[in-house]
């Protein structure tokens, strides 16, 4: 049924966007994490989603396919007195850009809300259909 598949689409949209919001929250929380080596420094998470064929419903549905780590440059600071400094006196920060994360958050929230709106309208249509002939 088409209306049910509309609901499946908006559900998949909501799931993908909430995964994105989740990644943003984790990135912002760890924006100020520091480490003594570049490998241990926090790398921003980026959610990758794309359309995947869902065998159960036989339609192509939006799914989170991967969570990748950002390849942006880390903040490196010279601070020999810092407890996390390495032998050369450097501290490695995260590679999170808070501005980028905030705009990502706004975009994800807006898309999530739009999907909720669609689900609400489809629900209304289904309810009306169920009351047909009454």
């Amino acid at each position, binding site marked *: 049924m088409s209306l049910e598949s*509309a609901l499946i689409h908006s559900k998949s949209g909501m799931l993908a966007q909430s995964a994105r919001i989740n990644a943003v929250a984790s990135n912002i929380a760890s924006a100020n994490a520091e480490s003594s080596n570049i490998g241990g420094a926090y790398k921003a998470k980026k959610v990758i989603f794309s359309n995947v*064929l869902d065998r159960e419903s036989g339609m192509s549905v939006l799914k989170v396919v991967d969570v990748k780590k950002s390849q942006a440059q880390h903040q490196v600071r010279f601070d020999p007195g810092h407890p996390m400094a390495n032998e050369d006196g450097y501290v490695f920060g995260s590679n999170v850009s808070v501005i980028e994360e905030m705009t990502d958050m706004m975009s994800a929230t807006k898309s999530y809300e739009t999907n909720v709106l669609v689900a609400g309208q489809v629900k209304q249509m289904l309810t009306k*259909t169920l009351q047909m*002939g009454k």
Partner: protein
Amino acid sequence: MADSFGIHESALLLHAKRTSIIAANIANADTPGYKAQDLDFKSVLKGKATQVVLSKSSSGHIGLKASGGVKYINPYAPSLDGNTVDVEQEKMKMMEANQRYSASLEFLNGAIKGRLQVIKGD
């Protein structure tokens, strides 16, 4: 009796299908490279006679209905990542599809009520 409700029976299905396509567009508003689709009513009407359905020889196969009418939208302003969904436009289309669906439903309701009245005879 199969066609006793006229065009509204198939109109209902058609608008439901369009709603599903618009829902998919909105869900993929941020998917890189996604191309927005829509139903072309004219070609649906024309293609009704020439519908191709692939047969399934195994339960693992996925049935494919090459129903005409689903087409890619010509975008006004595609984004850099190749996505052609215009969310505001899709919202308007969603509203339109919803209204048309409700209208067909209203007509069907009227037809059913009329018939019930005839059956009951009051």
